[in-house]
């Protein structure tokens, strides 16, 4: 049984976009040890993206490759959660400049990590054996990522007044973007119907429990969410993805057909 290509691309785009964002800290981390730790998280995501793109490319044929999928698709073709493309700072327009805020980085990794331990775990039982194998590998990585992020959420929330305020602001800023997790896309619905994908809605209670437990330990609160629900996985993104892809894809696109 083969997963719908759009479903694989959704998983791959998530991984590449977050890998790209986290790598922005490389050389700028709050302390050397943490710089190294976050680079490991980033490397895991780039690795997941490569496996998923390779699988999608093999299924698509027609000369598709991991790099044609990562570098030569436009913004609207990307199927990642909007949460993952946001810059490492609070809500600002796409072309605004700001310092990176480690609290935003950590809270984002935490929300996504909590989801992905559940998603990958379910996908180890996917009817698509290739996808199940990628899930088994990614699950171990995701557990470590969640551990890393949750540990820091607690340290920031329960740390100093400043770190508590920053962590709470990051939670308040990012929480609404998690609403998209629970909105099934056509690709997800199709994948669930054929026993390949995971029904994300069924994971919500477990995700809530994971998140609430850590937020409580961190003395952070969960904001009420209403209004806008992001639709990144449908290809409708924030203002930020265009900049991210412009930077990521620019060199490759300036030399179409080149091998690196």
């Amino acid at each position, binding site marked *: 049984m083969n997963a719908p290509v759009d479903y694989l691309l959704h998983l791959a785009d998530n991984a590449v976009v977050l890998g790209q964002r986290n*790598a922005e800290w*490389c050389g700028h*981390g709050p302390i050397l040890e943490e710089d*190294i730790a976050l*680079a490991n998280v980033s490397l895991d995501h780039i*690795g997941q*993206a490569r496996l998923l793109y390779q699988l999608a490319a093999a299924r698509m044929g027609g000369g598709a490759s991991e790099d044609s999928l990562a570098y030569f698709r436009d913004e609207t073709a990307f199927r990642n959660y909007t949460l993952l493309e946001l810059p490492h700072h609070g809500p600002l327009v796409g072309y605004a400049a700001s310092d990176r805020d480690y609290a935003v980085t950590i809270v984002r990794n935490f929300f996504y990590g909590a989801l992905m331990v559940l998603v990958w775990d379910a996908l180890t039982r996917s009817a698509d054996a290739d996808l199940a194998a990628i899930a088994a590998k990614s699950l171990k990585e995701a557990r470590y990522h969640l551990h890393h992020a949750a540990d820091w959420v607690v340290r920031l929330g*329960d740390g100093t007044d400043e770190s508590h305020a920053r962590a709470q602001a990051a939670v308040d800023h990012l929480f609404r973007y998690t609403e998209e997790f629970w909105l099934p896309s056509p690709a997800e619905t199709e994948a669930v119907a054929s026993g390949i994908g995971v029904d994300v809605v069924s994971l919500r209670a477990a995700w809530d429990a994971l998140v609430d437990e850590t937020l409580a330990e961190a003395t952070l609160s969960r904001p009420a969410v209403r209004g806008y629900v992001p639709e990144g996985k449908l290809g409708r993104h924030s203002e930020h993805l265009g900049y991210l892809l412009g930077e990521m894809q620019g060199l490759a696109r300036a030399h179409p057909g*080149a091998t690196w």
Partner: protein
Amino acid sequence: MYTQAMDIPDAAAKPAGVSRTPDAQDAAFEARIDADGRIEPQDWMPEAYRKTLVRQISQHAHSEIVGMLPEGNWISRAPSLKRKAILIAKVQDEGGHGLYLYSAAETLGTSRDQMLEALHSGKAKYSSIFNYPTLSWADVGVIGWLVDGAAIMNQIPLCRCSYGPYARAMVRVCKEESFHQRQGYEALLVMMKGSDAQKAMVQDAVTRWWWKCLAMFGPPDADSPHSAQGLRWGIKRIGNDELRQKFVDATVPQAEVLGVTLPDPDLKWNEARQHYDYGQIDWAEFWATVEGDGPCNRERLATRVKAHRDGQWVRDAALAHARKQQQRKNKEAA
């Protein structure tokens, strides 16, 4: 891995003078050095030896972490996912090497914070090679091939350094390092088999970096303020000129295989010497860059300072949480 000329004096460093009355400790130390023995942190050592080591090891550590910046410049734009992963892993390794080296220096009684303070205030130096910009993707390959290649020449002898923790850190660094030069050279090989634009990119990068890499070995031994003492103490094992020659001899054939031209009209094989002759290095430009007036000194240093300052609240938070946890534990126990 990045070291160069570790005999660049810090702004405030005094010449490593040896003007003590010899005593038993001193004699024992000198005897151990003469016997090519190792010095360990608890051992008595002359103050000048300690100071020289702190300067050299911390300069080396600073070079690793400042060295993350020029290559980090291309992580977000790496033209394939494979190259992106390789580059992240490599830049991350450099951070690791910095960490091992700071740890080695800490055994001498200087904290990492003190060393960072010296870097941030401009008192401590780092390898000047990182004060040049990385202008194209080919720079990443050339840094791996030439800059890491030059660094390897410098660092392999340091695995036999007389100071145990430094030597052990260098063993670890060199082991991890072996992939850095190879990945750079291989990336360039692939580009040289590619389009004209890719080939031009490689040649341009080689032209810009070649002379800077030769200067990495430091001034000629005759003009090198710390070389003699460093050699005597087994902190430095091979002189600058000999290492530079070794590097040139090793690199010329690699450039031929790659198909690039090294930008030196005087570069030619000398049958009598059994070495390559090479042209004059622009030492005035080198010293200007060491003194802070290279193209990127300010950007590099300011970026390190900013990362450290911006991270303060994160470090404080972790410590505050650890203390609260400890207090809670103590309360439970009471």
